[in-house]
C-alpha cells in the first residue's frame, strides 16, 4: 500500500508538450481518477507512472521511492489496459499466473493467489479457457484478476471499461468500486467518461491540454468548478453558459443580456462587483432551473421559448431559446411544456456560477 506523489512532471514528444508541470499527491488507499478529453495528457501521465514512458522532467514517487529510472517491473504496480492485453496463447490461469511466475513465486502460492482472485471475480470456471473463448466482460475480469494476484502497491487503469457495452459498463463500474473497498489498494484510473469519474473517484483530476485544471472530490468539482472548462466538462446535460453584462441596480447588482435580467445574490455580490460595467460568463446547470410560479420574484426568473421537449421519464429536458442563447433545463417529468410555447423559468440563486471571460476562471 502506498501513496503516489507527482512533482513538476513534464513530458515532451518531439514538438508536443503532452504533460505540463503536473503536481499531485495521491494518498494511500485512495481511488484517484484522471478525466479529460482525448489528448489531454491523462494517459501519458498514467504511462509515466507505470514506467512505459520516460519522464522528460520532474519526479514520480511510489511509496517513498523515486521511481523515475526504475523499469516497470520494479515499480510494484499492476495495470489494466484498455484492450485488456491478455496473452492470447495462454489460458486464463496462465495469464493471471504469468506475473507471479516472472517473480519466481512457488507453485503453491501462485495457485492459491490465482484461485483467490478468480473467486473474487467469479471466473473460477473459466481458468482453463483461452482469452478468445471469453466474452468482453469475462476478459475484463481476467485483466483485473491479473492485476489483483500480484498484490501490488498501486493499481493503474487505462480506460478499462471503454470497450464494454453500456449495460456491462455500469455493472463493472459497481464491481470495481466494491473491489476497491475490499482490497483498499491505491488506484489511479484514467477515463474520458465523466460519469465513471464522478462515481468511482475518491478524488478526481480534470486535465486539459496537459495541464491539471482542478483536483478535488467529485461533488466539490461539480458544485464549485474552478473554471469554465471543468464546469462544462462535468455534468450531463452540460451547464448552460450565457454572456452577460454586469450592472449596478437598486443598491444591488444585476446581470443582463438580450434574454436575461437577473439579480446577483448578495453572497456573490462582493466578487461580481469588480465587473460592474463589464462582461461575465454566467453559468447555470439544467437541474438548477425550474418552471417558475407566481411566487417567484421577477428578477430571479426569465422568459424562454420551448424548442424541443424530451421526456425521459425520470425528468424532462427542455431545449429553450433565451434571447440569442440556447439553454437546457431539467424539470419535473410531467412539466406542462409544449413545443413553441412560452415559459417562465426560475433560477436557483445559490447555484449561479460566474466566470471571467478572458481567463475563464471562476469568479
Amino acid at each position, binding site marked *: 500500500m502506498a501513496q503516489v506523489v507527482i512533482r513538476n512532471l513534464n513530458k515532451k514528444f518531439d514538438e508536443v508538450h503532452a504533460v505540463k508541470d503536473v503536481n499531485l499527491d495521491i494518498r494511500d488507499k485512495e481511488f484517484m481518477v484522471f478525466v479529460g478529453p482525448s489528448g489531454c495528457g491523462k494517459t501519458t501521465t498514467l504511462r509515466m507512472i*507505470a514506467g*512505459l514512458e520516460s519522464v522528460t522532467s520532474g519526479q514520480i514517487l511510489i511509496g517513498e521511492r523515486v521511481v523515475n529510472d526504475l523499469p516497470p517491473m520494479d515499480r510494484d504496480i499492476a*495495470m489494466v489496459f484498455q484492450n485488456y492485453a491478455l496473452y492470447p496463447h495462454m489460458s486464463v490461469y496462465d495469464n493471471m499466473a*504469468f506475473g507471479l511466475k516472472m517473480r519466481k513465486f512457488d507453485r503453491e502460492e501462485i495457485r492459491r493467489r490465482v484461485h483467490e482472485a478468480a473467486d473474487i471475480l467469479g471466473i473460477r470456471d473459466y481458468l482453463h479457457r483461452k482469452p478468445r473463448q471469453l466474452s468482453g466482460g469475462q476478459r475484463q475480469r481476467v485483466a483485473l484478476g491479473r492485476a489483483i494476484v500480484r498484490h501490488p502497491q498501486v493499481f493503474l487503469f487505462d480506460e478499462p471499461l471503454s470497450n464494454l457495452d453500456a449495460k456491462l459498463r455500469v455493472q463493472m463500474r459497481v464491481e470495481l468500486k466494491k473491489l476497491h473497498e475490499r482490497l483498499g489498494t491505491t488506484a489511479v484510473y484514467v477515463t474520458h467518461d465523466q460519469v465513471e469519474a464522478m462515481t468511482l473517484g475518491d478524488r478526481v483530476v480534470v486535465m486539459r491540454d496537459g495541464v491539471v485544471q482542478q483536483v478535488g472530490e467529485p461533488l466539490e468539482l461539480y458544485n464549485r468548478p474552478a473554471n469554465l472548462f471543468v464546469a462544462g466538462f462535468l455534468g450531463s446535460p452540460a451547464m448552460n453558459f450565457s454572456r452577460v453584462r454586469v450592472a449596478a441596480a437598486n443598491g444591488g447588482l444585476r446581470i443582463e443580456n438580450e434574454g436575461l435580467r437577473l439579480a446577483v445574490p448578495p453572497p456573490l455580490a462582493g466578487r461580481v462587483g469588480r465587473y460592474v460595467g463589464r462582461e461575465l460568463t454566467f453559468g447555470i446547470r439544467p437541474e438548477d432551473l425550474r418552471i417558475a410560479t407566481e411566487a417567484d420574484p421577477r428578477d430571479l426568473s426569465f422568459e424562454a421559448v420551448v424548442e424541443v421537449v424530451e421526456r425521459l421519464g425520470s425528468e424532462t429536458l427542455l431545449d429553450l431559446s433565451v434571447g440569442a442563447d440556447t439553454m437546457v433545463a431539467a424539470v419535473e417529468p410531467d412539466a406542462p411544456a409544449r413545443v413553441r410555447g412560452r415559459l417562465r423559468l426560475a433560477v436557483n440563486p445559490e447555484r449561479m456560477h460566474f466566470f471571467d471571460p478572458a481567463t475563464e476562471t471562476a469568479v
Partner: protein
Amino acid sequence: MSVTTTAALRAPEAAGRGRLKGLFEDERRLAFALLFPTMLLLGLFIAYPFVKGVMLSLTNAKVGEPGEWVGLANFAKIWNDAIFRTAVWNTFWYTAVTTVFKLALGLWLAVLLNRHFRGKAFVRAFILLPFIIPTVLSTFAWKWMFDPTFSVLNWSFYKLGLIGGRINWLGDPDLAMASVMIVNIWRGVPFYAISLLAGLQTISPELHEAAAIDGARPWQRFWHVTWPLLLPVTMVVVLFSVIQTFADFQLVYVLTGGGPANATHLFATYAYQIAIGTGLLSEGAAISLAMFPVLFLVVVVQLLYIRRVETR
C-alpha cells in the same frame, strides 16, 4: 432469376443480352467461368507435366527418342549412383543449415527493424534488395567476389589478418558447399526478416507493456510473448522457404555448376545435368521426381498446420 425476368419484361430489346446475363447470375456457373482459365493453364502446365514426368521416368526416353517402358529401372539406377547419393545428402544438408541460419538471422533483423528509428523505411527498402534482384545476376556478383585470383574477400580477410594465404572458395570441394550456403543465406535473410517483421507488427505493443509490468525481462518477454505469437507466421515462412531451398537450382548452377568433381550437386542441378546436359530425359525426370516425397511431406505438414491454426 426473377430479377432477370422482370428486367427482360421491362426492356424487351435487351432480352438476348439478358439470357447471357442470366447464365452468370447462377453462382455455380459464374464460379466455373471465372475458374476456367486458371484450371486450364494449371492443368496443362502443372498436372499434365506431372503425370508426363512420372510416365517419362518409367521409360528410357532420350531427347528425340520416345523410348520404351522400363519400369523402375531408372530409379534403381540412380539409387546406385554415387553422385546422386551425394546430391541427396547435399540437398538435405544445404536445406537444414541454410534454414537455421536464415531463421536466426532473419528473426534478429526483424526484431531490430521492429523498433522506431530514423530512416527505418529506407533501411527496410534497401535490405530487401538481395531478394528482389534477379538471383542469377546477384549470384554472379558473388562468383566474382569468390574468384580465386581476384577475390575481394580474400584481400579483406588478409588485410584484417584473418588469413595467411588464399582461400579457394569455390574450388575446394568442402568449401564450395559452404560458399553456396553463404549466398543462399544472404539472399534468404531479407525474405525471412520482412515476413517475420510483418508478423511482429501484428503483435499488440500492449502485450509487451503488460509483460513488462508483469515483471518479464526483455529476453523473457521475447520467449514468453513474442515467440509463441510469432510461431504461426514462422512456421509458414520456414516451410515455404524449405521448399524453395530444397528445390534450388540457380545458385549452384551459377556458382559451381555442381562441381568441383560433382561435390555440390543438388537434386535439381543433377537432374538438369543428366536430362539436358547428357540428354537422358527419363533418368533426369526420375531424379527430379525423387524430390517429390519430401516436398509432398512438407506441403502436407503445411496444410495441416494452416488448418489447425484456422480452426483453433
